[in-house]
Structure formats: C-alpha cells, structure tokens
C-alpha cells in the first residue's frame, strides 16, 4: 500500500482520549472511588540496611478507625521479581530491609490520615547493618552481603561476551581510543504518582485497578505472591499518567492493597506520595563505562570493547536485562565488525534501578558518541561526515548476531545536517570561538538506534506477545479489545486507527477496550517500544479477517467477486460502481447473517531471531529505529551555564502512523534528554535520596526547552504495521551526547559524565585556563575482574534472517 492510498494512516489526528485528558474526564487509579472503600498507607524503613528484630503492630491495630494492619508475616512467604532469574523482593520485608523506603508494614483505615497515624504506631525494632551506597563500597565489602545470590559478593550479574578478535581489530587500527565515562542515575518523574485500588470480593475473587504498564505480568505475579488461582485475579490497568518504565514491576503497594482488602472485606485504595515514588524508583542505572575503540584513518571502526559497571540498587528488578542492554545495542548503529562487551551489575543499599526510557542504552550511547567525536577530532574529520560514512548496512547482521532491517540513519544525518545549517555552523576543530563576551556558541551531533519491541517475553513461552479481539456491531461500530496499556504514548489511538484504516471507517467508529485481564487478550505491556508494532500487527490481522468476511457477504449481495471490493468512507463496494456500495453497518448485518457473530482475533509474536549463544535473547527485535540529532547551544564561560537554542532531531520511524503522535514522542524525548544531560541526578546523602521532591529534584521546565525541529524519516519497514517502527524511546538517546559534543565545540571542554552541571563546566574551564587537560569525568575504575568471555564468531555483515517470517502470521 502506498502512502497516498491511506485514509487514516499518516494523518495528524488528535488522540482518541485527548478530550478526556484535557478536560479532566480521564479517571486515573487515584480517581476511583468504590463504596465502603478503605485507604491504606505503607510503613517504610528509615534504615538503608538493617535486620528486622521484631515488629509489634498491636498499638496500630488498636487505633480507632483502623481496619487491618499487616506485615510480611501476613503474606505467603514468597519472594518475587519481574524476571524469573531475580526473585529477590518481598512486598513487606520480613527479615531485612535493604534501602530507605523498603516497606515493612501496611495499614488500611477509614482515611489516609488515620492509616498514616497507625503506621507511626507500628513498632519495628531494627538492628542496623553497614550500608553500601556505591559500586566501590559494595565491592570493597564482600563481608556485607545485600543478597545471598548473584554472580559474586554483591554482584548481581556479571556478563562477558566477545564477537571476533578484538585485539587483532585494535592492532589493525590507525587510532585506538580508550575513554572513561559516567552516567548518573535519574528517575522517570511521571506526573501521576502510582496508585491502586484492590477489591477482594465476597466471591473470593480479586480485582486490582492500578497505574501499571504491565497488567499481564502483575496478574501472573499477584497469583504467585498471594497464592491464589490466577483465574480468580483480574487486573485492570487504569489510564496511566506517565510511565517511562517506572510502572513496569509489581509493587509492594499493589500487593499490600490486595491483602488488606482480603482481610478487611472492603475495597482498599493506596496512593503513593511523591517521596515514595522516588523510593520505588526502577529508574536509570548509574553506569560507569570504559570504552576502547579502534578507528582507521578514514574513520571506519575496526572493533570496539565496552566495559560497564551498573549501580543496581537494592533489588534485581529488570537489572539482568539492563546489564545486557548496556552492551547489546551499540553495534546496531554503525559498522562495528568486532565487538567485546563486559558488564556487571552491583547491588547497593539504594532504591532499585530498572528500565527507564531507553533501558540500559543511553549510557553506552553517551560513551560511544562522545568517543566518536574525539576520534573525529584526532583524525581531522567532520563528525557528521564520519558518522555518515560508517552507518550500518540494512538487512544485515551485527557482530552480536542482531538482525537489522531498514536503516534510515543516513537520511536522518543528511536531514539534520541540512536543517541545522551544520556546514556553516560547525567550523572545524579548534576554530575560533563564536559568540560575544563570555558567551560562546557551539554545535554538536550524535546518532542512535533502538529496538522496536523485545524479541522475548520476560518469561519463556511460545504464545503471542500481543493479541486483539475485534468485534463488529450491527450499528457499524467496531470494538477492539487488547491488553495494551496506554501510558500517554497513544497506544489506544493506534488501536483505533489501524482497524479504521483496514475497514474504511472513521477512528471514532472504533471503541478501544484496553488492558483488562478478564476481557482482553494478553499484551505483554508498554515497554521496550513494542506496543505499536506488536498490537498493531495483531490489530491489522484481526481487522483483515473481519474485512474478508464482510467482503464475502457484500460480494454475495452485490453479485460481484470479493476481490473487486474496497472498504472506504464507511462503505463497502466496487470502486467503479460506488453508487451501489453498501454502508459499513449494512455490510456488518449481512456478514453477521452469513457467518454469525463477527468477532475475530489477531495475534503477534516477533520473529525468532535470538543469537545462538547464552545472552543472545537480549537485543533482538523485529526492527530498529534510528535517530540523528544536532544541538546548538551557548556556554557562559563565567558561570558555566549552558543554554540550549535549537535541537534538530531526525527520526527513522519506518512510517508515521500519526505524525502528530510521533512528533510528540520526539519532543518529549528531547525534553527528557535535556534533563538527563544537564540537571537530573538520583543522588543520596546520609543513605537517603537527597532531593525526593518535584521542587528540589531538578528537571527542566518549558523555559529550559529550546526550539525542537522534528524531522520524520520513513523507511517503510517490512516488519512493522504499515511499515512503522518505534518512536517512544529512540529519539531520547542522541540528545545527551549531542549536548556534550556541542559544549566541546563551544568552549573546548569535555565533560565525560552526566549531568553536565554548570559547576562541572566551570571546573573544566578552570583546568583549561591552567593549561591542564580540560576534562571533567571519572578518574578511576572499580577493581573488578570480569569472568572469561564467551567467545562467539562475529556475525557482522551476514545477510539478515528472513524478514516477516513470524509465528501466527
């Protein structure tokens, strides 16, 4: 189908829930009110690491207005975690707390204030243990164990993979660079704080409404944690007011609300405070990185060797995947024939890190793009030209056995170079400064790539990753049921657009019923940029099945061959005899008369392309998006302050199903990237998060957001629905290194860690004035021995595996 043949696809339509969001109609989890509802609060640990000697809840339970008080002893003795390999969490800690904010008791009461007062009356006797607050401390104190499992004392996971002979690759290089980088942790900062309502009914069945990105995984894990049949548990994802990866795990507050509801026989609501959201976290891992890359004189990469140390926090969460992701995606962007990756995730007594937008990849992306910038300088090359030269080949495999399909990165680069005026603004290495007074202007460039959906579920299975059921009603409307969760990215809207396109009706004629485990087929959740592609393909499949049946019925009525029929403008008919076309509603009636109830399923599972080595399951994706970014900014040499002027970002989205939504994702990514690059840091003092509030945790406002020039590049990927790839995460990735590179262009200092604060810029400028290396960044690496790498042959340059050969197609 060519673009001009589309009626809905490619149109800048408002989201189907836009009116409700704007007018305040949308009912988030915290807006739900049920009769007789109780309110719950959690008591959280004030200690970063301590043994629990005793808990006495008697005074709390005796407080008037309290319905139930529970501790870990009131829950089945089950440890859980989102990944089967990291079952290390308890909703309410029984023996030990591992961070400030770990929950130890929960209270349901007639209102929140009473519940809070009762929490204060719970007497917990702690025996404090030494708190390990950094990678260095955790490795230096193997005698203090945060967990008893893992790949070593306080080492959650250690991985080492080698694809090809990296030493030979360095020997063949004209320039070998070794650089060290640090990427500070930061948090998702969704506007909506997590909330849940649990109702354990008199029929002994449980319903949970929650602000979650993964109702299916919560459903599975609740059954396990509460030791009840999954068939008696229903999870409904309420509309989510921002996720960014922060609502992907099962959480203590959800589990506590369920158990409290079971005990007190009332619905129970629990809503986290902003402070608690900072403790729940699962955000960006702080990652220390060592990167060694060989380049030829012309700028080609001969090989690359990356080491990453992740500060994981107190629990596993998605951390094993995060660790692999710090290594998996770098080879997807550029021709990188040989690759070695070593990574380790270390436990610390801080809130657990997990999957924030870009999951594990912004950190090594920052390292690689900043290093390429330096290599370009040493080789005397234009950093845009160097990148253009080494863009990966479409329809090939990478060194680490990932199959890439379409690649629009070359066009992305050309378009941002053109739009930004790069050729005039970038005036060569060590060109005289631009600007007046102490204010210097600079431009920087960076690229990235990201997966469109993880190739594997978090638990091993052969079932679809996404499914829909589509039902046509006699009024000419269509209902689509799908387990996907709209977290603001617009997945509900996509589920309306795609069937509307296939069936020739208006998106308004499609009613979307998302994320209810009783009613909707499973979708694994809103993570890894998987939803548009996976539920989109499933939705097209179901709609196409419905259309076939409608065409049969209409063809019989009109006495024509079904192959001559088209569906458009809410009609079905023969194009050159359109006067006789039937309305869509009539077509549905005929179809239902012929076939019975019109309900059709669509299913999607990604192609099975995991590399045939241990660890090869992390990184494969149906297709990859690409982005290129140019930033123009000013640096004040007296204050070190950075002001952004313009960001040009070109994104290869495959096809923009709705360009308005894609632009929204790009702009949101740029905005988030600015925060990560310049301000945001999840840092601790006296074992506690230093700034757990929206005022003191500095994240940019609209005033810090520059003009964002979005350029959409369409490559029509064969794997995506109507050719679409992801847009939710990829455009974030090049922003941080492009900013760092632009700062170098402006004032000649390298800041090798984010956030790039004005203090760091000023410090680097002082070093420069003193004639010292003008760099601020990590100076040393942890003493840590990686295990012997698994050596696998590089698959670089091999032709891609078969395209669009997927299960259930």
């Amino acid at each position, binding site marked *: 189908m060519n673009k001009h043949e589309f009626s809905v696809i490619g149109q800048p339509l408002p989201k189907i829930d836009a009116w409700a969001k704007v007018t305040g109609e949308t009912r988030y989890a915290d807006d739900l009110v049920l009769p007789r509802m109780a309110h719950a609060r959690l008591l*959280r640990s*004030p*200690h970063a690491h301590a043994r629990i000697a005793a808990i006495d809840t008697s005074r709390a339970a005796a407080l008037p207005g309290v319905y139930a008080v529970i501790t870990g002893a009131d829950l089945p003795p089950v440890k859980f975690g989102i990944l089967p390999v990291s079952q290390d969490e308890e909703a309410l800690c029984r023996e030990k707390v591992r961070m*400030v904010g770990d929950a130890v008791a929960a209270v349901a009461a007639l209102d*929140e*204030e009473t519940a*809070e007062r009762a929490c204060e009356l719970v007497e917990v006797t702690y025996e404090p243990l030494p708190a390990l607050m950094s990678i260095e401390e955790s490795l230096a104190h193997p005698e203090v164990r945060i967990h008893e499992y893992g790949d070593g004392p306080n080492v959650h996971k250690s991985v080492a993979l080698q694809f090809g002979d990296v030493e030979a690759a360095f020997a063949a290089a004209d320039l070998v660079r070794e650089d060290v980088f640090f990427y500070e942790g930061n948090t998702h900062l969704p506007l909506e704080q997590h909330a849940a309502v649990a109702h354990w009914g008199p029929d002994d069945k449980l319903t949970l409404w929650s602000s979650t990105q993964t109702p299916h995984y919560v459903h599975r894990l609740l059954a396990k944690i509460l030791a009840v049949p999954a068939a008696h548990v229903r999870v409904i994802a309420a509309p989510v007011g921002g996720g960014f990866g922060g609502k992907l795990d099962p959480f203590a507050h959800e589990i506590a609300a369920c158990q409290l509801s079971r005990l007190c026989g009332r619905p129970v609501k629990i809503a986290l*405070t*902003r*402070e608690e959201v900072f403790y729940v976290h699962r955000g960006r891992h702080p990652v220390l990185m060592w990167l060694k890359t060989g380049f030829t004189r012309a700028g080609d990469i001969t090989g690359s060797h990356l080491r990453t140390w992740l500060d994981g926090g107190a629990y596993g969460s998605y951390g094993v995947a995060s660790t692999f992701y710090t290594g998996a995606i770098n080879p997807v962007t550029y021709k990188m024939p040989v690759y070695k990756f070593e990574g380790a995730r270390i436990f610390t007594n801080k809130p657990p890190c997990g999957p924030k937008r870009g999951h594990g990849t912004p950190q090594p992306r920052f390292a690689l793009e900043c290093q390429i910038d330096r290599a370009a300088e040493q080789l005397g090359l234009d950093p845009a030209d160097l990148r253009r030269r080494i863009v990966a080949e479409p329809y090939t495999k990478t060194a680490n056995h990932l199959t890439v399909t379409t690649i629009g990165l070359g066009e992305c680069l050309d378009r941002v170079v053109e739009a930004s005026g790069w050729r005039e603004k970038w005036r060569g290495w060590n060109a005289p400064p631009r600007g007046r*007074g*102490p*204010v210097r202007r600079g431009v920087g460039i960076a690229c990235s790539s990201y997966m469109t959906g993880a190739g594997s579920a978090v638990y091993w299975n052969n079932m679809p990753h996404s499914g829909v059921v589509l039902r046509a009603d006699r009024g000419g409307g269509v209902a689509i049921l799908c387990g996907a969760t709209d977290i603001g990215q617009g997945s509900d809207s996509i589920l309306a657009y795609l069937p509307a396109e296939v069936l020739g009706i208006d998106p308004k004629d499609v009613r979307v019923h998302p994320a209810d485990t009783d009613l909707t087929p499973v979708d694994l959740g809103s993570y890894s940029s998987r939803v548009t592609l996976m539920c989109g393909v499933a939705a097209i499949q179901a709609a196409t099945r419905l259309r076939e049946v409608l065409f049969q019925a209409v063809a019989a009525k009109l006495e024509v061959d079904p192959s001559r029929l088209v569906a458009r403008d809410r009609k079905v008919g023969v194009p050159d005899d359109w006067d006789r076309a039937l309305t869509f509603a009539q077509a549905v009636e005929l179809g239902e008369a012929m076939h019975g109830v019109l309900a059709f399923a669509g299913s999607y599972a990604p192609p099975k392309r995991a590399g045939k080595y241990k660890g090869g399951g992390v990184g494969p994706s149906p297709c990859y998006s690409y982005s290129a970014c140019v930033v123009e900014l*000013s640096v*004040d040499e*007296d*204050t*070190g*302050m950075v*002001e952004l002027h313009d960001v040009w970002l070109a994104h290869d989205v495959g096809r923009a199903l709705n360009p308005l939504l894609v632009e929204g994702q790009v702009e949101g990514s740029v905005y988030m990237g600015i925060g990560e690059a310049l*301000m945001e840091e999840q840092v601790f*003092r*006296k*074992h*506690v*998060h*230093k*700034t*757990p*509030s929206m*005022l*003191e945790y*500095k994240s*940019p*406002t609209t*005033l*810090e957001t520059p003009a964002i020039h979005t350029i959409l590049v369409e490559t029509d990927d064969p794997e995506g629905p109507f050719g679409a790839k992801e847009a939710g995460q990829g455009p974030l990735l090049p922003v941080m290194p492009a900013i760092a590179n632009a700062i170098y262009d402006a004032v000649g200092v390298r800041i090798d860690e984010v956030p790039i604060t*004005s*203090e760091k810029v*000023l410090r680097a400028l002082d070093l420069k004035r003193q004639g010292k290396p003008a760099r601020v960044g990590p100076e040393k690496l942890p003493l840590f021995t990686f295990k012997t790498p698994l050596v696998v042959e590089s698959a670089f340059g091999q032709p891609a595996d078969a395209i669009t050969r997927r299960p259930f197609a």
Partner: protein
Amino acid sequence: MMRLPPFLYVSPRTVAEAAKAVAEAGPGGMLVAGGTDLYPNMKRRQFEPTTLVGLAAVRELRGVRGSAREGVTLGATTILSAVATHPDLLRHYPALATAAGLVSSPQLRNMGTLGGNVCVDTRCNYYNQPYPWRKAVGFCMKKDGDICLVAPGSRRCWAVSSSDTAPVLWSLGARVRLVSASGERTIPIDALFRDDGIEYLAKRPDEILTEIVLPPAEGWASTYLKLRRRGSFDFPELGVAVALRLEDATVAQARIVLGAVASQPRPATKAARALVGQRLTPDVIAHVADLAAGPARPLDNTDFTHPYRKKMTRVFVARALGRLAGLERAGRDEEELA
C-alpha cells in the same frame, strides 16, 4: 507529602481585628497571606499551627500608593505579580519589580504576597523535606531535633534566607510597619532580620507586617540578579541586589545586599563603600565584585555546590554593576533567570 492537618482558620476584615485574633491565638497561632509557602510546609509538618489568621480579606493591607518623588508605600498583601508589573515600580524601583517577578512560578506569584516573601521561612535541604525523610536522616534543630545537620558542631541553625525581595528592599533602604494589638512601630527593614535560621525575624509573632515603605527613588538606580538552576519555580541560590545613586556618573551612594548566602540578607558593606566616589569602570567593578564576594559564606544546604555559589557571587555582583553602568550587557539577556 500528606494533606493539611486540621486547624482553625480566622478571617478578620481589618488590621485591628487581625492583630487581636493573632494575639488571642497565642503560641499556636500563625499569620497567613497567600499561603504558598506556609501550606506546603504544613503538609510536611514543619509548622503545626492550631489557628491561622488569614489576611486575605483585610483590604487595607493591599495596594501600592505614593510616588517616586515622595516615596512609595506597599501594602503587605499586595500580590507579587502586581508588584512585578506595576508601572511606577518598574520605572523607579526596577530591582523590586524584577525580584518580585522572579519569585517561583506565575501561579504562585498570583497568590503569594510581598509581605509573605519578605517573611518567607528560611530554607535548608535537610529541613524542607517530608516527615519520613527527616525521620530517616535524623531531625534537625529547626524542627523536631536538636542538632544542625549542615554544620553538626554548630549551636545555631544555618537555614538560608530565601527571599528574592528582602535583599532588594534592604538595598533600597525600605522600612516596614509592624502592628500588634498593643501598638505599632516602623523599623528599617535590616532591623527586621536576624542571623539565625530559626529566629530569622525580629518581628514578634503577634506583630503583623502591614506595610513596606520605600524612600524616594529620585537619583537611584537599582537591579537584581538571581541564581537558580531553572527559569521558574526555584528559590534563589544567590540573589544580588544593588542600588546606586549616581551624580555625574560618579557613585554618590551605594548599597549591595546578597540574598541566599546566610540566614538573613547579607549586606556587602565594604564593597559598597569602595564604590563611593568612583566611576563604574571595568576595573572598579572587578575590584568591588571581589570585595562583595567576601561576606558570602554559603554552606552545603541548597541546590548547587557551595563553592560554586561563592564563586558566582563575584560574577553576579560584577554583572549587576555592569548593567547599572550601562556597559555592554555581559551574559545572556535572561541572565537574571540563570
């Protein structure tokens, strides 16, 4: 953060009624005007008043009168956005209009009052935290504890004066009128403040700040620069208020007052004295900026590192003077938004 705790709200119509109400409320009573600082602090249980005497309905407390020639009197509950956009203030007392316009966000400036900003609670990032946080870290002497977490050996509290308008009013030579049930007094604004993070006001709790009186503006030029991480929301991490009277391009009188470097606005007296009799040449400005940075002794209890805030004192004083000298504007146009 939890919801507000229960309290009694009294809404007098006149200053006399308000003074009586706050006297009757005793130690559990507090005054509230816009509430933009007090209410969040109550939600964090930093203040637990039993009675709030609201000044919103006291009409005589609101408004701007007078002229640049005779001096201007501002009612204490005049909202900050009105101060920021008042044509006479913009023209004759530009530093005050600028400072009022840089407080927090537009929404808060539409609620927050000038008097409230002058009296705003001192801040410290060990103190402006929710109750469970303070419990985890250990309570400090400003609330619920008995030590200072910033300077553990200290006997005093080092919370930071975080008003944008107070240093400006000090530099302008403003006076404040305080009214209580037992009488009233008008004092220079520098006598309103004390160098203590807890007892940071010399005002008695039963006294109501009713008016801010500005002296005549003729011959004076003034400016205010603010350091903060973002262009909105943030409290000052450094404020520089400069007021000069120039005679034939020579400085006849000068006041430089620093905000957010101590528990009260901090005058840079030596620096100001060094300006008198001088022309604002780049050399003079550089010398005076070095002197002005002397009294700034920030501690590690706000955003930015304290050595950085100290360094920026010199830069911001130089820029403020450069601006008043009409020298080419250093830095970006929005630098006061830093």
